[in-house]
């Protein structure tokens, strides 16, 4: 077991002057489950592949434990990797797939068979050991890929979106299985996903990347309750946080005719007179006075109800691409499930106490609480 340290790690791709991963500083503790999350193309896979030795490192270093592995080939790093498409050897049986590394490492046959059996038992794969991957379901293939990793008992697991090829239900089940397996084995794990729900439910800590730059690394609760900037605030949580640009006059910001006070520390840290006010859907109270909004879409989940509302105030979009944006609504408000709101209903909204986040509109950074 070991820690993993990224020390100013940087990666360029040919023909692109901006690095895919830019001076990444990250410490992963021994046995920790760290999730790398961010939108597609932000450099998660590149980060993981640098750690695995599949990608060169143009600047900085990577250490596993005390060892500097920056220039070591993959096989000398003592890491195992689970690929997005599993990368099972199609011409080998499940047993041979799982045991391939041990065979290369010249482990005696009896011990190898025993280790493969143990791994298979752990993953409920015993009856499939003699099958070829083509004859397995998606979930079984995914488990074989896991088996190939855990049979090695490596210092570090690398997983690159290992659940993205499973259907939604299986993904939720497997998510908890992987997390509990990792805790049982206690192997340091770096897990890549673009799905913030997966990140928040699985990780001990979650590192949010954007355009190759680390935005914040914190526990799920930390990320959710104290997002470091506008990007993290919008990325973490589903539906996303409502982000409303507002002008500051005196000691308070004005949102839709309602003034929300800033603390002196916040006022002092502000670099201009504009802030972004962040309020999560569950942070609103529906009452008789406050910001007025009109319900446009009601999303009934049974336990909760999300009201997508339009209002006469501007809002900030964090997601760059059109398909990542949920809808061009000013507001998302959570109401209790089956509350009976309908399209066209008028709401008056006030933020609940302690539910307001302030960000500097110029820098995007969080203002101190």
């Amino acid at each position, binding site marked *: 077991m070991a820690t993993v340290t990224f020390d100013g790690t940087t990666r360029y791709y040919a023909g692109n002057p901006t690095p895919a991963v830019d001076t990444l500083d990250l410490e992963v503790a021994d046995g920790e489950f760290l999730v790398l999350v961010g939108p597609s193309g932000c450099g998660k896979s590149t980060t993981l592949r640098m750690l695995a030795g599949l990608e060169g490192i143009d600047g900085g270093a990577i250490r596993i434990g005390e060892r500097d592995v920056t220039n070591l080939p*993959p096989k000398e790093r003592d890491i195992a*990797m689970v690929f*997005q498409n599993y*990368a099972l050897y199609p*011409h080998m049986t499940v047993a041979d797939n799982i045991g*391939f590394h041990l065979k*290369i490492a010249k482990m005696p046959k009896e011990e190898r068979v025993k280790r493969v059996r143990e791994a298979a038992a752990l993953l409920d794969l015993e009856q499939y050991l003699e099958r070829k991957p083509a004859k397995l379901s998606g979930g079984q293939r995914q488990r074989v890929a896991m088996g190939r990793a855990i049979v090695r008992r490596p210092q570090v697991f690398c997983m690159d979106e290992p659940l993205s090829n499973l259907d939604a239900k299986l993904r939720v089940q497997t998510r908890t299985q992987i997390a509990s397996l990792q805790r049982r084995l206690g192997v340091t794990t770096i897990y890549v996903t673009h799905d913030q729900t997966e990140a928040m439910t699985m990780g001990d800590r979650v590192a949010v990347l954007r355009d190759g730059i680390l935005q914040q690394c914190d526990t799920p609760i930390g990320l959710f309750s104290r997002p470091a900037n506008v990007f993290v605030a919008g990325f973490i949580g589903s539906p996303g946080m409502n982000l409303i640009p507002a002008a500051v006059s005196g000691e308070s910001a004005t949102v839709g005719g309602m003034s929300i006070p800033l603390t002196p520390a916040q006022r002092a840290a502000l670099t201009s007179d504009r802030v972004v006010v962040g309020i999560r859907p569950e942070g609103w109270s529906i009452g008789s006075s406050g910001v007025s909004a009109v319900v446009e879409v009601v999303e009934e989940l049974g336990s909760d109800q999300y009201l997508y509302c339009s209002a006469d105030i501007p809002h900030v979009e964090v997601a760059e691409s059109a398909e990542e944006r949920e809808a061009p609504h000013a507001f998302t408000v959570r109401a209790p499930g089956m509350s009976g709101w309908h399209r066209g209903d008028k709401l008056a909204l006030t933020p609940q106490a302690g539910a307001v986040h302030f960000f500097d509109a110029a820098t995007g950074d969080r203002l101190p609480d």
Partner: protein
Amino acid sequence: MSAPESAPETRVRREHRTPPRKPRPAPTARGFSPLRIVGMAFVWLFTALNVVILYWLVTAAFKTPIEIFNKPFHLPYTWFERGDPFRNLRYAWENAGFGNAFLVTVALVAVSSVVIVAVAAPAAYALTRLGVRGSNPMTNFFAIGMGIPFQTLVIPLFIGMADLGLTNNLFGMFLVYVALSLPFTVFLLTGFFKSLPDELEEAAAIDGASPFRTFFTVMLPLARGGLITALILNAIGLWNETLLAIVFLTDNANFTLARALFTLYGAASYQSEYGGLIAGVAIVVLPMLVMYILLARRIITGLTLGAGK
């Protein structure tokens, strides 16, 4: 969702039905477009023509010359009536020295095809997979080799081989065959190796396999379809190869089937033994035809694999 009360009715409908003999095609595939009609007509014509030729060849191998010319599409009867139906085949076999030529051809074709693939596979792997510097120009260079008709090379090749004392020599023939078949084979196999996923190699690297081991235990088994296709195509091509055999081989003992057939052509037409000549053609052609029919599916999937997926 059907309402509960309609369920029994549905069950009755389910019980009283027979599955279609052939599931209906998608609406887009149905109907006859002019292109489809022309295409179908062309394919069937082409097939019919080939079947007729094959029929003619096989029946003529059992006919007397008079039958061949007067009743080209009749079934053979003269030799059958005389109680010696295989007379033509015997004539060809004995006069052309096919016995020895058969052994020579099988050995030469087998060794050449295997060596061609054994040389071309690592070359194609290196060109597509190892990130060798200048691999793209080199691949193109091989492709250019494919574009040069080997007929233009026959004379310089012959002079070169003669200087080395390798004419009228099966080893020399083997070298020529391997050299001339490499461009196509390398090109075919680069397509194959390109179609294999990168992740497998990366997985092998993480599992600790050396490039050498990755090639032999992971990539080669996966490219098996491609290797077999390359092997079959080369075998068929070399089996039928005549021009080079005529130029390079002068000694009866070294004759390949195609070369021996050429000699038989001279002798049989002189003796007006057309039945025997055609029997000789059948002896040379049919083994490859049978092999091709048996392996057709394999070859086609092999040839198209590089393109799709």
